[in-house]
C-alpha cells in the first residue's frame, strides 16, 4: 500500500509551493482581477514555463519533462492553492491531454513541444448554450476542413492560440484542431464571474480545421478529456479549499468578539471542522483519481466523477463558509474571501457542474452493478 505522493513527488510539490509563494502572492492575482484589460499574468506564465510545468506530463520526446499524471496533480494542487491567474488548465489539462489521447504523431510533434515551452495557449471549445453539454446541443459543423459555428463560453478563448473544438461532420460529432491565428475566427471577450480566469465567445466562419481523432468519436473523446481534466481540476480545488480553510482559521483566531477569539465558539469551530472533513474526503477521492489517471484507465470514469463531485462540494463549502466566518469584512473587495468564492464557482463549472457529474457517476455505478 502506497497511497500518497512519493518523496520525490512531495519534493516537487513543496518546491512548487515555494515558487508560487514567491511568484504568485495574492497581489499578482489581484493585478489580473483589477485590470479588465488583462486576462492572465504573462510574467507568471513565462516563469511557470521556465519551471517546465506545462510539460510535466508531456513526453521528453516532445519537449516535456516526461513525468506522470501524479506529478501534474501535485503541481495542480499548488496552482489551485495560489489561485494562479493562468490559462494553465485549458492548455495542459484539456488541450495537451486531448492531443496525447487523440492527436496524430504529426499533430503531437507540432503542438506538444510548443505547449511544453509555454509558447502556445490552448482552449477546449465544446458548449454553445446554457445547460449541460449534449450531442444535440452541438450545432457547430465542419465541412471539407472548414469550421462554422459559435462556441460560448470558451475558457481562455480570448488569449488562446490553439483550440480543440467539438463540432459535427456529416451530422456526427467529432473533435477538430483550429489554429486561432488563422482566417475565419472572431473572438469576443466575456465578462466572467471570476475575472482572474477569462473566457470568450468564439465565432468560426469557415475557419480551417483539421480532424483530431476519428470521425464520429467527438462525444467519446470529449468525455475522455473531461475525465482527465476532472481529476487535475480536483487537485486545484483541493488546494484552493485548503487555503480557504487556513484563511478562515486565521481569522477565527485573530478576530475578537465578546472578549475572546470568535474561533472559541462552537458555531465557528464546528463549521471549520466540517470544512476540514469535506477537504479530507475530497483529497482522498482526488488521490484515487490520480491513481486512475496514471494506472487505472478502466476505473477512471468512476474515479474522475467521484473526485470531481467531492472537490466541487469541498471548495464551494470552504469558500462560502470562509467568507461567512469573516463576517462583514468578507463581503468587501479588499479582503480575499471573494477570490476563493469566485474561483470555487469557476472551477466547479469549467468542466461541467457537479449535478451532471453526479448523474455520470451513478450511471457508471449502475453499469458496475449489472456487470
Amino acid at each position, binding site marked *: 500500500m*502506497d*497511497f500518497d505522493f512519493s518523496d520525490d513527488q512531495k519534493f516537487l510539490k513543496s518546491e512548487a509551493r515555494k515558487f508560487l509563494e514567491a511568484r504568485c502572492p495574492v497581489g499578482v492575482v489581484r493585478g489580473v482581477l483589477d485590470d479588465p484589460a488583462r486576462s492572465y499574468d504573462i510574467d507568471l506564465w513565462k516563469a511557470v514555463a521556465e519551471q517546465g510545468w506545462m510539460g510535466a506530463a508531456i513526453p521528453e520526446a516532445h519537449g516535456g519533462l516526461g513525468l506522470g499524471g501524479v506529478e501534474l496533480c501535485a503541481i495542480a494542487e499548488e496552482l489551485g492553492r495560489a489561485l494562479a491567474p493562468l490559462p494553465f488548465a485549458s492548455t495542459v489539462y484539456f488541450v495537451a491531454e486531448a492531443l496525447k489521447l487523440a492527436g496524430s504523431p504529426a499533430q503531437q510533434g507540432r503542438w506538444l513541444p510548443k505547449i511544453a515551452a509555454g509558447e502556445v495557449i490552448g482552449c477546449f471549445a465544446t458548449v454553445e448554450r446554457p445547460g449541460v453539454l449534449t450531442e444535440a446541443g452541438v450545432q457547430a459543423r465542419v465541412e471539407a476542413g472548414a469550421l462554422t459555428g459559435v462556441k460560448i463560453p470558451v475558457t481562455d478563448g480570448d488569449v488562446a492560440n490553439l483550440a480543440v473544438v467539438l463540432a459535427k461532420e456529416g451530422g456526427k460529432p467529432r473533435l477538430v484542431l483550429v489554429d486561432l491565428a488563422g482566417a475565419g475566427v472572431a473572438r469576443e471577450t466575456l465578462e466572467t464571474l471570476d475575472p482572474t480566469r477569462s473566457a470568450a465567445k468564439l465565432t468560426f466562419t469557415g475557419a480551417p480545421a483539421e480532424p483530431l481523432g476519428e470521425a464520429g468519436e467527438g462525444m467519446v473523446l470529449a468525455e475522455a478529456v473531461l475525465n482527465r481534466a476532472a481529476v487535475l481540476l480536483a487537485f486545484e480545488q483541493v488546494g484552493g479549499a485548503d487555503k480557504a*480553510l487556513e484563511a478562515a482559521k486565521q481569522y477565527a*483566531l485573530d478576530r475578537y468578539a465578546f472578549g475572546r477569539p470568535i474561533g472559541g465558539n462552537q458555531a465557528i469551530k464546528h463549521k471549520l471542522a466540517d470544512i476540514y472533513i469535506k477537504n479530507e*474526503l475530497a483529497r482522498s477521492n482526488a488521490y484515487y483519481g490520480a491513481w486512475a489517471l496514471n494506472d487505472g484507465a478502466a476505473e477512471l470514469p468512476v474515479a474522475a466523477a467521484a473526485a470531481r463531485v*467531492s472537490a466541487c462540494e469541498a471548495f464551494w463549502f470552504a469558500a462560502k463558509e470562509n467568507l461567512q466566518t469573516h463576517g462583514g469584512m468578507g463581503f468587501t473587495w479588499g479582503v480575499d474571501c471573494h477570490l476563493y468564492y469566485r474561483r470555487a464557482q469557476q472551477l466547479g463549472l469549467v468542466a461541467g457542474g457537479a449535478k451532471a457529474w453526479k448523474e455520470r457517476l*451513478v450511471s457508471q455505478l449502475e453499469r458496475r452493478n449489472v456487470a
Partner: protein
Amino acid sequence: MDFNDTSQEAAYRDEARAWLAANAPKRSGAPDNGLDDPTNMEECRAWQRKKAEAGYACITWPKQWGGGGGAQWQSVIFGQEEARFDTPGNPFQIGLGMCVPTVMTSGNEADKERFVRPAVRGEEIWCQLFSEPAAGSDVAAARTRAVRDGADWVINGQKVWTSGAHFSDFGLLLARTDPDVPKHKGLTMFWIDMKAPGVEVRPIHQMSGASNFNEVYFSDLRVKDSQRVGAVGDGWRTSLVTLMNERLAIGGGGGAGHRTVLKLAQEISTLTGLAVKDSALREKIADWFVQAEGLKYTRYRTMTALSRGQTPGPESSIGKVVSATLMQDMAATAMDLEDQFGIISDPQTAPLAAGFQTALMNAPGLRIAGGTDEILRNIIAERVLGLPQDVRLDKEVAFKDIPTGR
C-alpha cells in the same frame, strides 16, 4: 500512488493468509451478536489463544508480554486477512485496545506481570468504567467516589454505557478521590475485580431493543491501594493514555450502503416511475458514494503512513463523524422509498431483511458512542485546526462547588 503491497508486505500477507487458512475456525452457526452476549464465548477464547500462541494477537506488543513484537502495518494486514474469514467475535477488544495498554503504561510491575499475558491469551476479559450518568462528554466530571480506609479504598457510585461489563473479569475504573480540588486534579484510576462483592451489573435496554451496554453500581466496593493504576490524583492523565490507545479505526466500514440503496431503487416505484430513475435520489446516491469512497481512501492514506513507518495524520479522525450520519441518511431515505412498507421491521417481510430499519435504529447510537458528533467536531477544531478550547466555567473551581443543575 499504488495499491499493491511492497514485497515485504506481500510476504507477510501470504504468511498470515496461509496461517489463517490452516487455523481459522469454522463458525458454530450461532449468530454473531458482537459484544451483546457472546453465546460462543468459548470459541472466542479458543481463537484468541490460538492467535496468541502464533504471535498474531496484539501483534505490536512486545513478545515479553505475550504480543507479536511486530509493526503497525503487520497488524493492519493481519486484520484485513482475518476479516476475510468467518472468525468468532472479539469480546477482548476493549480490554486489549484500551484497558490493558493503560496497565502496561501506568500500572505497577506486579500488575503487568499478573494481567497482560492472560488478557492477550483471551483468558481474562476487561471492561472500561469511565462514563457516568452525569459525566458523558464531560468524562472528567466523574462522581464515583473512592475514599481511603487504611490500606484500602472504598468505592461508591455508578458507571454507565459499559460494554461487556456482564462478561468481564476486570474493569478499569476512574474515580473521584478528592472533591476539594478542580475536577481534573481529583481523579484516580483503579483496576477492580468485576466479580467482587459490591459490584452490580445491570444491562441497559437500548432503543434498538438490544443490550450492548450496562450500568455498573458500586456499593462499598473495597479495593486495595495496590489496585491503583498511576498516582493518586493522576487519573485524568492516565485516562488520556487509555483513550489515546483506542484502536486505529482501520478496516471495514459500511461501504455497501449505496449499492444496497441502488438495488432497492431498481425494484421500487415512485409516482414518476422506477425509483432508480429519480434524479433527486440519484444525486443522493452520488453524494453517499463519494463520502463512503472518501473514507475508504482516507483509511488507505492512514495505512500508507503506517506502512512507511510514519505517524498517521489527523485525517484518520474524520471516520465516525462521517459514517454515522451517512448510515442514518441512507436508512431514512431507503425507508422513504419503501414508503408505507417502511414501517415494517420484521426481517421476514421487510425488504432486504429489514437492513435499513435496523440501521435506522442503530445510527443514533453510532452518532453518540465513543464521542458524539459534537465532541468529535470540537476535537478536530481544537487538536487539528488549533482553535481555542470552549469556555470552561468549572476549570478553576473545586469539584464539589461545580454547579450540577440539581
